[in-house]
Structures are given as structure tokens and as C-alpha cells.
């Protein structure tokens, strides 16, 4: 799709995952840094989705279009879902919850890129 954007998503997601694990290790609850990180990740993922939709409108057709759309929807929902779920937890484990969501985003965007690259047949 857009390699710099993919790298940016991955970098922010990995940083957020580390931050989440760190806050759990330090027995801290989540703070502003987690929310800012998750917000940034959400914006980047939305930008990636916009690039993908523009590509689809421009005629790019991954062979596994349904899989692609399913993963894309999941990736777009994950940062917000992670934050909402983490905020319902009043313990230090909230950071790990955010880390799980962020790590899933980091893995899934590259799976998404793989599916995107396979066209025609």
C-alpha cells in the first residue's frame, strides 16, 4: 500500500506496546502517554485505510478482497477497542491490554500488505 505509512504504523504500534508492558511492569496504571500513543496509532491506521480505499477505487483488486476488507476493518477498530477495554480495567494490567491491541495492529498491517500485494492470478 504505502511503505512509509506501514513503517510508521508499525513503529508507533511497537512503541505503544512497549509502553503498555512497561507500565504494567512498573505497577502503574495507564496515563496520558498511552492515550496519546493510541490516538496517534488510530490516526495512522485511518490514513492507511484511506490509502487502501483510494487504491480500491482506483482499480486495485487484491485476489482475496473479502479477507483484505475483513482485516482492514479489524485493524481500524483495534486501537479504539483496546483503549476502551483498557479503560474499564482499574489495575496495572490496563497497560498490557493496550499492548495486546497495539501488537495485534503491528502484525495485522503486514498481513494486510501481503494480501494487498496478491492480485490477479
Amino acid at each position, binding site marked *: 500500500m504505502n511503505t512509509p505509512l506501514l513503517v510508521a504504523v508499525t513503529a508507533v504500534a511497537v512503541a505503544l506496546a512497549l509502553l503498555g508492558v512497561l507500565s504494567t511492569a512498573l505497577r502503574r496504571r495507564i496515563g496520558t502517554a498511552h492515550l496519546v500513543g493510541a490516538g496517534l496509532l488510530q490516526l495512522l491506521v485511518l490514513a492507511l485505510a484511506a490509502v487502501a480505499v483510494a487504491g480500491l477505487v482506483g482499480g486495485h483488486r487484491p485476489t482475496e478482497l*473479502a479477507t483484505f476488507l*475483513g*482485516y482492514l476493518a479489524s485493524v481500524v477498530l483495534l486501537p479504539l477497542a483496546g483503549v476502551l*477495554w483498557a479503560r474499564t*480495567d*482499574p*489495575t496495572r494490567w490496563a497497560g498490557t491490554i493496550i499492548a*495486546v491491541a497495539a501488537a495485534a495492529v503491528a502484525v495485522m498491517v503486514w498481513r494486510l500488505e501481503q494480501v494487498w500485494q496478491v492480485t490477479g492470478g
Partner: protein
Amino acid sequence: MAEPSDAPPEPTSATADTTRGPGRVLVALYGVFALAAGARATVQLATRFDEAPLAYLLSALAAVVYLVATVGLARGGRGGRRTALAAVSVELAGVLVVGTLSLLDPVAFPDATVWSNYGQGYGFIPLALPVLGLLWLRHQSQVAADRGDPR
């Protein structure tokens, strides 16, 4: 189980139940796997069931098991723990049986499932997840027993 809303920020394990702390992390992990396996199974079953029916039905079974485990862990309490225990046990059996069969008879599994090769394609998380789930559920039932909750 209803928790008091003015709970302290860091409850000790004696006051915890499956719906908070590490249990919520498990719910998040199971939720992600339910989502990933569910999306994959739906597409596979809808578009090319004939190619590898066994693998695709296993994907769908895995997705359902993850979903049931997610709900059971998220609900907590005695019923939730029981539901989760059943789902997590099926999951552990599934990943061990499918993992072994996929190594012995790769032809039967032309398209990977979450449980193929013990979940290698997913960083072996599918193998670790039911073990963590069982440990957590055992811990939770001990906590409940210490509190004198009805079994």
C-alpha cells in the same frame, strides 16, 4: 458479578475475579483471536469451502471456541468460569490434535488453520493461550473457594 464502583485502583488478587486485571488481558487476547479466526473462517467458508473443507471447518470451530472463551472470561463468576473452562479445554485439545495431525499428514491440511503446526503461523500464541487460560481459571476458582463462594 457486580463490583463496587469505588473499588481501589490496585485490588489484591483476593478481591480480583476473571473480569479484571490479568483476566482482562486474556479477554483482549481471546478477543483478537476470535476476530482474526472468525474473519478468516467466514471468508474461507463463504468463498471456497470445496477446496479444503476440513481445514475451513476447523477454522470455524476455532473461531467459535475463541468467541465462547472470550465471553466466558469476560463475564466471570461461576457460570462464566465454567463456560470458559469448557472452551479453553476444547481449544487446548484442538491445538494439540490439529498441530500433531498437520505435521503427520500435511496433505489433509493444504490451507493453514490457526492450529496448524501448533499455531506456528501465529507465533505459537494459540498454544500458549489455552495454557494461560487454564492457569488463570484454576487461580480464579481457588480465589473463589477461599472466599467461600458457592461452587
